[in-house]
């Protein structure tokens, strides 16, 4: 049940594989079907030019570059629900788009739609079922759309989110962002990395 949003966002397989295999490297090389640089430029344009309300979380403007650092779960959520879909649809959603690119777009939008449906503030059985359909379509087409990708345990775990939506309702009741925040607070506490010596110092 744990890191729900991390599970969902990590399903955006390309950037995650990039991070896992080359954690400190910028995007390089070209996909056989599309130019990564063109896609990244479109996403950068969307991040830079989209007007957003002030409450909406910021994302790195240089997403995909080395200097952008590690993308946090909340930033992945903003990217996958706003910037990446509008950038990709504006690139590949037109009638003159190649069939290959359209299928990649449709596949990505299955994941985007799954995130939208599952992260809604209200939940119905109809929406939980829609989530399951989207995630089944996404995982089912993964090897066909991205032949070099493998199905990971996170893909399997994402199917259980349907059960959690039915059992516990909207994700805001049970996702682990509060725990993530607590971990963040603990990580920022000053320490000399010598555990168990605090009492000795006090004594």
């Amino acid at each position, binding site marked *: 049940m744990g890191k729900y949003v991390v599970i969902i966002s990590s399903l955006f397989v390309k950037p995650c594989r990039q991070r896992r295999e080359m954690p400190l490297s910028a995007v390089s090389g070209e996909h056989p079907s599309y130019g990564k640089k063109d896609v990244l430029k479109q996403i950068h344009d969307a991040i830079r030019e989209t007007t957003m*309300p002030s409450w909406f979380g910021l994302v790195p403007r240089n997403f995909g570059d080395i200097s952008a650092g590690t993308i946090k779960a909340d930033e992945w959520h903003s990217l996958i629900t706003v910037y990446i879909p*509008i950038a990709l*649809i504006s690139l590949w959603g037109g009638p003159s788009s190649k069939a290959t690119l359209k299928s990649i777009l449709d596949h990505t939008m299955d994941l985007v739609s799954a995130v939208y449906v599952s992260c809604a503030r209200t939940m119905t059985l109809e929406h939980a079922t829609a989530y399951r359909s989207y995630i089944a379509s996404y995982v089912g087409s993964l090897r066909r759309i991205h032949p070099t990708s493998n199905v990971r345990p996170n893909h399997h775990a994402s199917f259980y989110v349907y059960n959690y939506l039915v059992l516990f309702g*909207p994700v805001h009741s*049970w996702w682990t962002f509060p725990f993530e925040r607590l971990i963040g607070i603990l990580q920022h506490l000053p320490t000399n990395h010598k555990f168990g010596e605090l009492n000795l110092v006090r004594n």
Partner: protein
Amino acid sequence: MLCSYLKGAKLRAWLSRPDCPQAVKECKVLLDQAYGVNGDDTTVIDPLEEYVRPLDTARATNMPPDLREFVHLRRTVLRAHLRHAGVVFSRSSTNVGNSQIMFYPSGDQSLRAVPGLIKYIFEGDDGSMAFAVQWREALGRNGEGDPFAAYPHFPAKLYSARASEKLEKVKILWVVSHYACWAISEEEVVVLSLCRVSSCISKPRL
């Protein structure tokens, strides 16, 4: 730990259901106050009490000519920002992002919410604060050629980049959410509703 976590999740799910007894909801308010929870939970903040009326110290100014068409006052209180239920709204000349709102036309919730830009935040005839909004003009082709229409659970739609000259009075309670806006060409913008209630996501044609 797992059992207590599951019980907590069950309790939260129950509290957010419409059939949850009022007495239990009252307990939640008390617990939230005891543990200092006051974030964005609108059940804690009474939306009718927060900044809906102008402050006593606010000064009235002359009514702008375009606002005079539907507010029959010579002077009114104009504001740059308004905070309501924890959300900040601004006029477009102050902060464009905070001025982008989805709202029900005439407050009719049976209609689909439409996007607009807040030009003024003013005190209306009835003494409460309201928005003077410019509509985002729809494209005159009934959604044909809109690539965003292909995805029913992604609440984005193309609109004209122009906003209407005419203003419409919008009450605060008619507002659904903010929206994101990106100009994909000189003539067209994509409008993405930021409402996260499932009924809004299920109505993709904004």
